[in-house]
């Protein structure tokens, strides 16, 4: 099956030697422009966002990035000759090809995280009847879709290698509200064909949350990194924080530490139990001011002179004591 090569570095607009931090920044910048939850023009931004997210999925993962860099030079020569476990979507008799999962053919072929694992029995005895293998693939959804649920069109093309026949099946998959990353959605009868008149296996689509510029998820909890000034951490502050369903005002308590988490109960993704939701966590990131004005510098110097910051002084005393 022919696959077009994707230049992920060009998609993110970064150099091939870009650091992990540069890739993260480039993704966040582009994701703010094209993320379906944030973009005004959803129809045109959708394809662009998928491309950005896919590039980010590969380049932020050191193992996948290394593999991609190796593929870069001779990717077309390795096509059709899978060398790694990610290529297991091809069973001996059949080859599966997806559309509508949010990943390109190139990604599915080389980087699909779970691969298309086959479950079920292997059939070696021709006289018996066997159920076809189950297969597994990934489906990429945005956090907004995970929040409200969605209906996604998926196209599954199956190539029977023995007969050379290609069969395309179209269906829709209902993403339930609160679909967590890693959850499997069963599509019955769309796995590998049965043997000796046996039933077909099932297709399992494993939910993958698309990276969001502002939020990350873990099960039904949502996390947001909030940049705060040093004085806000020390003195406390009231800040406006975005969530998946509108902004909230919250209080940063005095003497907050860098990396400290503040929990807002019940503002995460919906749970299976109706009416119940996960939590929303704000992770405080104390940012030091850059490019100080002379006035600001004077204030920091004033703070230094009057500060009773004792920690290092005590450490020094300990280290000089015989």
């Amino acid at each position, binding site marked *: 099956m022919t696959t077009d090569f994707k230049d992920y570095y060009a998609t993110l607009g970064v150099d091939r030697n870009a650091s992990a931090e540069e890739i993260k920044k480039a993704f966040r910048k582009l994701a703010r422009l094209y993320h379906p939850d944030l973009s005004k023009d959803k129809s045109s931004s959708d394809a662009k966002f998928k491309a950005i997210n896919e590039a980010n999925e590969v380049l932020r993962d050191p193992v996948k990035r290394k593999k991609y860099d190796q593929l870069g030079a001779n990717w077309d020569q390795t096509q059709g000759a899978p060398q790694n476990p990610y290529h297991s979507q091809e069973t001996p008799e059949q080859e599966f090809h997806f559309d509508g999962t949010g990943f390109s053919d190139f990604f599915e072929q080389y980087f699909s995280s779970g691969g298309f694992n086959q479950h079920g*029995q292997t059939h070696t005895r021709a006289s018996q009847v066997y159920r076809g293998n189950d297969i597994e693939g990934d489906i990429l959804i945005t956090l907004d879709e995970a929040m409200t649920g969605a209906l996604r*069109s998926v196209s599954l093309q199956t190539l029977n290698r023995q007969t050379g026949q290609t069969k395309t099946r179209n269906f829709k*998959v*209902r993403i339930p509200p609160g679909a967590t990353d*890693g959850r499997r959605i069963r599509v019955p009868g769309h796995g590998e064909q049965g043997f000796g008149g046996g039933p077909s296996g099932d297709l*399992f689509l494993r939910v993958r949350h698309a990276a969001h510029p502002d939020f*990350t998820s873990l099960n039904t909890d949502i*996390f947001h990194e909030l940049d705060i000034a040093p004085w806000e951490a020390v003195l406390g502050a009231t800040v406006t924080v975005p969530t998946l369903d509108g902004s909230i005002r919250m209080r940063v308590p005095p003497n907050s530490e860098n990396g400290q988490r503040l929990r807002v109960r019940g503002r995460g993704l919906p749970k299976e139990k109706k009416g119940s939701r996960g939590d929303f966590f704000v992770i405080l990131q104390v940012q030091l001011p850059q490019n100080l004005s002379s006035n600001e510098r004077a204030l920091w110097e004033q703070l230094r002179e009057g500060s009773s910051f004792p920690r290092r002084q005590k450490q020094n005393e300990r280290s000089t004591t015989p």
Partner: protein
Amino acid sequence: MKPDTSEKPSNFPVYGKETDTAYTIDVIAELADIDSKTVLRYQESGFIRPVHTSNKAAPLFDEECLRKLRHIGHLRATCGFNDTGLKLILELLHEVEILRQEQRLGPR
């Protein structure tokens, strides 16, 4: 699970509707093509966990248990694991999944 075809105007079948199907040990054994004693052994080994039921004498299993049993059947058929090897490989697969998730989404 029967497809929900109520979505109009498209005629594409819709899958993924939540079901509360629960199977008895004999039914799930037949669906997974193994015997009931093996299902019981896997339950005792902690490979599958029955859904909560008020009658503890008759455990009921859900769709996820069926998927796991078929997965175990595949591992046995292709790799020839015994129960000890199976326990190890299932734990490792679970750990790999957690680590992959952490790598993708960051540790929490």
